[in-house]
Every structure is written in structure tokens, then in C-alpha cells.
């Protein structure tokens, strides 16, 4: 019952307000991923599988601790491992827990053509309602982070739900619960920013002078944020997008193009109607028929005239 939570602030392919009487008066939620504390144990991946009852296919070893190789319809979160040689010549093993960022301005929701297949709750969580999903993949086209995956079995789009089912009843997401180092924390977005600020101060005092918070404004901020040692180079972390935003092409396609196109089509049809009203039909009269007949008779052979 996707609508019955009564806290839906945005709903895909819907122009009228959704049931949203229950606000999030204690603030929106956020997951903070502190890459500087992560040891790459993958307890979060396992917890996600366990809570959500997901079992991905067993993959292959491609020479990295990263396993599985990529996000999938059944792997909603993934530790991405990057080896970075810093200017001092030291190796840094950067590990980033990838998954849905829960954008405040979600590109997936903007692109989705199916009413209610993607919703945004007042607490900030962006959730797919797969019973409404038609499998077109427009969410994949709209996402600036390359997160949604279409299942090969049921052709529905899947991604991290931020454990919306757990959060709705006051629990933290499963991955947070499993993290042994405190790299994953969950709370109100405000609290998470404060916590991040403390962490960044600590990191700076220890030589990471470019440490910072990843909460990209291009998508209105996200409800999954990173603390990065190298916040000036997010790309080091397995290609984390430096300045994510909904592509201008997607904005055009799922924004202004929609009403403008319908208006042009309607005006074209109206132009036809008013042409009929003002000018009328182009009809053949008896003089044309007579002229045609005369021309034909003049050219017909005698035997054809009979």
C-alpha cells in the first residue's frame, strides 16, 4: 500500500499532491558513510542481503576484493575498492560503500513515466514501488549515480530502499546495524552533518587537509552522505561523481518538453479545425468535372468513346 504511509512528498508521473499529511517534523533522515573508518568487511552487504532476503548469483573473482563486481537487482549495496597512489608515493586503499544516494532532487523520479512507481517520503527516502514499475528503465537514464538495476527475471527496477520498512517503524537500516567500526551511522540529516563536521575536523588535524563532506548540492543534497579523506577528488573513490546533477537532457525530456509538446500537438489540431471553420473544404464542382470530361473526350480514341 504505497500511499497509506501518508508521508509522500513526491510521486513519479503525478502532478497533484499525494497523501502527505504526516510530515517529518523531527527532520529528514540521513545515512553517513565515513570512508575513513571503513575496513571493507562487507558486513553491510551481508546485512542488506539478510534483511531484504536477497541472494545474488555467485560471480567471478576479477582480481579485487570487490564482490560482487557491480550493483545488481539483488545487490543493493556494494563496497567498491580503489587503489590510489598518493603524491607521497604511498598506497591508499579507498573503500566506498556504493548504493542509492537518496537525492533530494531525484533524477529517477523525474524520469519515471509510471504514476507512483517511485515515491519520495517526507523523511527524504526515495523508494521504488515495484508493483507500479513498468520496466522501461527511464530511472536508469535519469539517475546521475548509475544506481537502479532492472531485474532480468521480473523486469522491475530495484535499488537500496534505505530500509524504508525499518525506518518507518523507528529502526535504523540493516547495514548500519551491522557495521563494526562505526563507519556507518544513521540519524537526522542535521545530526549527521554535525557528526561529519567533527570527523572532518579530526581528519584535518591528522593531515587530511582536504577531508570533507560529500552532500552534493547539484541534486539538492543527498540523504546518503560520505565523509571523504580527499573531498577535493571524489573521483578517486571508484568514480564517485564530482558534481552530480540531473542531466540537462533529462531535464528537457521530462521537464519543459512535456507540456510544450502536448501544446504544439493540440494547436496543430486546432489549426486544422479553424481552417475548416474559416476556409472550409476544397471541393470539386461540376465545372471541374465537365472540363475534365471534355479533355478526356478530346483525347479518347473513337472506339473507347462508345
Amino acid at each position, binding site marked *: 500500500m504505497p500511499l497509506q504511509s501518508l508521508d509522500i512528498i513526491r510521486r513519479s508521473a503525478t502532478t497533484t499532491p499525494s497523501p502527505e499529511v504526516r510530515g517529518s517534523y523531527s527532520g529528514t533522515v540521513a545515512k553517513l558513510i565515513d570512508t575513513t573508518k571503513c575496513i571493507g568487511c562487507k558486513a553491510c552487504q551481508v546485512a542488506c542481503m539478510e534483511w531484504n532476503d536477497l541472494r545474488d548469483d555467485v560471480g567471478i573473482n576479477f582480481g579485487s576484493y570487490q564482490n560482487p563486481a557491480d550493483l545488481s537487482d539483488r545487490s543493493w549495496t556494494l563496497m567498491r575498492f580503489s587503489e590510489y597512489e598518493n603524491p607521497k608515493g604511498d598506497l591508499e586503499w579507498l573503500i566506498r560503500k556504493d548504493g542509492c544516494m537518496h537525492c533530494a532532487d531525484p533524477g529517477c523520479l523525474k524520469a519515471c513515466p*509510471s504514476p507512483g512507481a517511485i515515491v519520495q517520503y517526507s523523511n527524504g527516502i526515495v523508494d521504488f514501488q515495484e508493483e507500479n514499475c513498468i520496466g522501461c528503465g527511464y530511472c536508469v*537514464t535519469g539517475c546521475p549515480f548509475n544506481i537502479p538495476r532492472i531485474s532480468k527475471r521480473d523486469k522491475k527496477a530495484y535499488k537500496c530502499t534505505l530500509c524504508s520498512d525499518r525506518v518507518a517503524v523507528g529502526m535504523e537500516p540493516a547495514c548500519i546495524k551491522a557495521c563494526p567500526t562505526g563507519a556507518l551511522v544513521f540519524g537526522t540529516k542535521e545530526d549527521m552533518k554535525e557528526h561529519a563536521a567533527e570527523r572532518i575536523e579530526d581528519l584535518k588535524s591528522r593531515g587530511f587537509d582536504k577531508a570533507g563532506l560529500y552532500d552534493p548540492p547539484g541534486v539538492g543534497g543527498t540523504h546518503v552522505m560520505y565523509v571523504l579523506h580527499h573531498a577535493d577528488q571524489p573521483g578517486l573513490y571508484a568514480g564517485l561523481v564530482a558534481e552530480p546533477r540531473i542531466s540537462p537532457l533529462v531535464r528537457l525530456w521530462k521537464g519543459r518538453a512535456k507540456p510544450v509538446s502536448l501544446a504544439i*500537438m493540440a494547436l496543430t489540431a486546432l489549426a486544422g479545425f479553424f481552417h475548416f471553420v474559416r476556409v472550409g473544404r476544397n471541393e470539386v464542382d461540376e465545372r471541374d468535372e465537365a472540363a475534365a470530361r471534355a479533355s478526356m473526350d478530346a483525347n479518347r480514341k473513337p472506339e473507347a468513346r462508345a
Partner: protein
Amino acid sequence: MSDPVPRDTLLRYSPGVRTNHWLVAIAFVLAALSGLALFHPALFWLSGLFGGGPWTRILHPFVGLFMVLVFFTLAASVWDDNRLQSADWQWLRQWRDVVNNREERLPEVGRYNAGQKLLFLVLVVCLLGLLVTGPLMWRAYFTLPVRLVRLASVLHAICALVIICTIIVHIYAGFWVRGSVHAMLRGTVSPGWAWKHHRAWFRQITHAANPRARSD
């Protein structure tokens, strides 16, 4: 020439051309309605005509491919008659006479007038555009770089908008020039119709030794 043609009518479209045209037309309507359902939320209800959202998503590309296939079959058979010639530019410059039914002031028109030739050109270009961009967005079978898919999505929508508007004009023109719909449904026009709207074609077919030899 399997149609029995009454003595006072001229055959304009053969049964083959008519069949082909209406196959294109039916496919176009289905492709346009299913495409519009996926384009604008206000029209998502059109997906009900196709059995719901997932079925609309499944059927649209196949309907589109079928439309392209039958269109280019038709296009091949009418290609030569749709080449723009110098007289066509004069006809287009006098568009005010065209829309105000002052046909007597226009240059003599052959089998197709310049408006019909423009329609043909727009359809060829847009259908090629749809044919190229469509599969790029076809997630069921293709997974391509997302930038390419985004560009294809925009171009697909633009081609579709142009083609839908062009077809609205085409449908209205069929109603406007009385006798055209009958010509495409049953194949024949009256001599006066050919005399008035396509005089050069009229002369060509009636001045030949056998007036009805040419039927396509």
C-alpha cells in the same frame, strides 16, 4: 488492376498501395498512443488500451519496428513520384493560395503536390530518426552508455513530436481536400478531382494511348 474501375473514375491508388498505407496508418496510431502514454503522465491512461504499463512498454518498440518496415515498403513504391522539383518551390511560395482553396492560381501539380512531397520527406527523416534512437532506449535488449541513451531519449521525443504533428496535418488535409479519403480507401477519384488537384497527372494518364494502364 484487379479492381473493376467504373468508366467515369480514375484509379489513383492500387489495392497494394492502399493496403500498405493503412497498415502504416494503423501501426502509427498504435505507436503514437503507446508512445504518448510513456511520454506524458497526463496521457499515461492510454497505456490501458494496451493492457497496462508493462504491456505498453513491451509492445511499443515492436509496433514501431513494424511501422518502419511497412512505411519503407510503401515509400519505395512512391519514392520517384515524391522527388521535389522546381515547380514545387513555386507551389510552396504560394502557400496562401493553397490554404485558401485558390488552386487555379497554382502551378499544375503532378501525381503529388509539394505539400505531399514535404510530408513524405518529413516522414522518411523522422522515421529514420525514430528507428535509430528507439533501440538505443530499448532496455529489454540493449544496455548502452547512459549519455547516449539520454540523447536518444530527447531525439526520439523530438522526432515523435514532429511526426505526430505532421500526421495531424496529413489527416486534416485528407478531410479538407474532399475525395482524398475515398481515394485511399477505395482507390478511385473522379476525373474532375484529378483535373482540379493534380492536372499534370490527369493529363499524363488520360492522354496516354490507354488511359488506365497506369494504376499505381
